[in-house]
């Protein structure tokens, strides 16, 4: 494979395009509402109508408005159909020839779509994730070629630093700096790891990227391998994501077949292979040191850092570990330039962020917006607010490690620092909207139960502390708690956050602390009357002043 071959595949792919393209969403959400049957129906209808040489039916990745699935798009014309049934196929195909159809139309001009800015998701819903040619037709693997032949690893790393990209796995560590550390650590063997564990309840960004555009992640990993001097990559995906695993397997096989992964990529001396490792679905295995233990075949428990993976990771070799979405940003940054990327977003948070909108919101699905977009724009304009005109009470970001942001803070721009200031975190991108009917102490109890169950059990504060905090929250929710219980709970929140070994325990108190910060009265109202009831009432009065 040389660049001419790549260009030829791309040109053939673009030239071979038929007059009409019917895109049918084949990501997990739409597939759960029978989109496979829809696609089969469409293919049959095209054949029956004798339109095979004019109309292409293309299975594509996530088309984002998951709540209206199965989604079907028709080009030209930018037409969107929603809630498509397999029985609609014939009518839909006929409509491409000008016939009227009563299949439910979606509005591609609604704010949900119009306010999005696609970088990571630019191929999602457009290319066929199971055909590498489709990705190459969308400029795929061009970035890999250009770094191999036009950039030194150092120039490449400087480029990533200049783009301002920060890790999308939660903590927001500057990606270029991490790459530089791994590159500078001397070692004959280095590894690149892609973190696709995605364990936050309600989050499905990484799954969508892997299902919709697996090659963008592979290309990002190969570029990273060149930058840091690694020849082996691992993608860690949870077993609950069978479709993502299948598409990755197909992608790796196809890339290997045409020489875009393996030895002598583009006939350069660069060698890079990628293997998949399947996790058993433990939340803690998303934590980088636990994830690496799991890849090594050990029990997935975290270990203290330092040493950081960049110095000593997989089998004690320097290891670069980044999130799925982080890798998916790399090829676009290389293609379009660091300046272009750095011009999007806010002063300290560059580029876009993908969010999975879920909960009490009209439009659930996947969105990608520039950093700095306000929460109000996301949940009210794009998300369409709470169903039935209910008012929004809070927005939860960062999953069990994050917090609840109250409605009066909705004008906050979404960036790493602003969300942290509000007692939440950016997290990996789950966004759960809650309406008036949500009771905050119950939300806190739910997330604490999650952390208690997912604690690996290695360190005492997290293992025993989450159990005690859950017990206290349970008492409070059941109106058996006292003011003293509340004080004990807050003391434990501080202690577990400060003393736990890994991020799971350190962040487990966040949902409790943030709901206590903004909705304290809901807790006070639940305290049992009795010996401590007096105390509770006093605190409540003090609070209301």
């Amino acid at each position, binding site marked *: 494979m040389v660049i001419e071959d790549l260009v030829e595949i791309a040109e053939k792919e673009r030239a071979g395009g038929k007059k009409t393209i019917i895109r049918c969403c084949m990501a997990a959400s739409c597939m759960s509402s029978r989109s496979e049957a829809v696609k089969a129906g469409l293919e049959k209808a095209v054949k029956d109508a004798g339109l095979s040489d004019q109309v292409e039916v293309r299975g594509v990745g996530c088309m984002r408005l998951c709540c209206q699935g199965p989604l079907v798009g028709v080009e030209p014309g930018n037409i969107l159909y929603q809630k498509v049934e397999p029985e609609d196929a014939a009518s839909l195909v006929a409509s491409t020839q000008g016939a009227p159809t009563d299949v439910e139309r979606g509005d591609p001009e609604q704010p949900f779509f119009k306010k999005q800015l696609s970088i990571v998701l630019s191929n999602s819903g457009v290319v066929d994730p199971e055909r590498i040619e489709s990705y190459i037709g969308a400029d795929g693997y061009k970035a890999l070629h250009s770094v191999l032949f036009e950039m030194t690893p150092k120039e490449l790393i400087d480029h990533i630093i200049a783009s301002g990209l920060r890790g999308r796995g939660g903590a927001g560590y500057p990606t270029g700096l991490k790459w530089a550390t791994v590159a500078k650590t001397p070692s004959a063997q280095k590894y690149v790891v892609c973190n696709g564990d995605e364990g936050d309840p309600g989050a499905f960004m990484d799954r969508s990227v892997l299902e919709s555009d697996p090659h963008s992640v592979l290309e990002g990993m190969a570029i990273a391998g060149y930058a840091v001097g690694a020849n082996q990559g691992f993608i860690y995906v949870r077993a609950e994501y069978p479709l993502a695993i299948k598409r990755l397997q197909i992608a790796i096989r196809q890339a290997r077949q045409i020489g875009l992964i393996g030895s002598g990529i583009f006939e350069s001396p660069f060698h890079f292979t990628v293997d998949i490792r399947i996790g058993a679905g*433990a939340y803690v295995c998303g934590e980088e040191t636990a994830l690496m233990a799991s890849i090594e075949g050990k*029990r997935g428990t975290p*270990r*203290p850092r*330092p040493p950081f993976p960049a110095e000593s990771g997989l089998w004690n070799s320097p290891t670069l570990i980044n999130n799925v979405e982080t890798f998916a940003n790399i090829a676009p940054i290389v293609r379009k330039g660091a300046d272009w990327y750095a011009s999007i977003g806010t002063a300290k948070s560059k580029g876009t962020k993908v969010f999975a909108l879920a909960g009490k919101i009209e439009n659930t699905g996947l969105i990608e917006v520039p950093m700095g977009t306000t929460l109000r724009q996301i949940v009210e304009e794009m998300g369409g607010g709470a169903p039935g005109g209910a008012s929004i009470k809070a927005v939860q970001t960062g999953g069990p490690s994050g917090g609840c942001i109250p409605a009066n803070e909705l004008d906050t721009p979404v960036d790493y620092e602003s969300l942290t200031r509000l007692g939440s975190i950016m997290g990996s991108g789950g966004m759960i909207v809650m309406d008036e009917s949500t009771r905050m102490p119950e939300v806190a109890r739910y997330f604490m139960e999650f952390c*208690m*169950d*997912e*604690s*690996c*059990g*290695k*360190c*005492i*504060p997290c*293992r*025993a*502390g*989450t*159990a*005690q905090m859950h*017990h206290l929250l349970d008492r409070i929710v059941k109106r058996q708690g006292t003011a003293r219980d509340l004080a*004990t709970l807050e*003391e*434990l929140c501080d*202690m577990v956050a*400060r*003393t*736990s*070994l890994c991020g799971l325990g350190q962040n487990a108190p966040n949902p409790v602390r943030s709901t206590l910060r903004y909705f304290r009265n809901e807790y006070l109202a639940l305290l049992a009357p009795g010996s401590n009831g007096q105390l509770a009432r006093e605190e409540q009065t003090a609070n209301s002043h």
Partner: protein
Amino acid sequence: MAAKTLNINGKQVSADEGATILEAAIEAGIKIPTLCHLDGVYDAGACRLCLVEVTGVNKLLSACTTRIAEGMEVHTDTEQLRKYRRMTLELLFAERNHTCSACVSNGHCELQALAWQNGMDHVRYDYCFPRWSVDASHPRYGLDHNRCILCTRCVRVCWHIEGAGTKNVAGRGAKSFIIDDLAQPWGDSETCTSCGKCVIACPTGALFTRGSTVAEMERDPSKLAFIVNARERKQWVV
């Protein structure tokens, strides 16, 4: 090996480059509470009792796993740390069923001693009273899960000193427990060499020699470090 100087609790201390804060403190005669640390095996950093404050570092660091650096300023005994240590111990006592008065290790228990040394005189949390069993299938030793604090000292000793790889941890969170081989009765284990190192390593009464009664289990874990040191220095090579 070059030496480094640092400051622990206001005292100038020097230690070998590559030493941990815990090692430097011990050398300087400064006591830091530990529970999962065991001389002779690698550290897990799991119990969090040895946490210390280091000036300029936001997080608390475990002394047993953090290497010293030139000019480091360490505090091991602040009000805050003492409070966290007491809470950690309280959490442990509430977690399983620790009844000192009926325990083989009463009077020789590291957990009990730590509670006493750190002024933990009562437990403010509700006791969990979980149901755990006792494995008495091994002819010489027993394992009482009720008294286990999951420090994993036995596991590390079994893998790294004896090399048998019998003991391990199964389960998650508070439901984690020590297993033998593939979670079978200890007595059925085909890998256990009955060396007894795990029993010597246990800080509480969880692992015991059968036939011992209340307060009879005394052990000397320094034997384990002795073996490791002798091996490393090839003292037994003739």
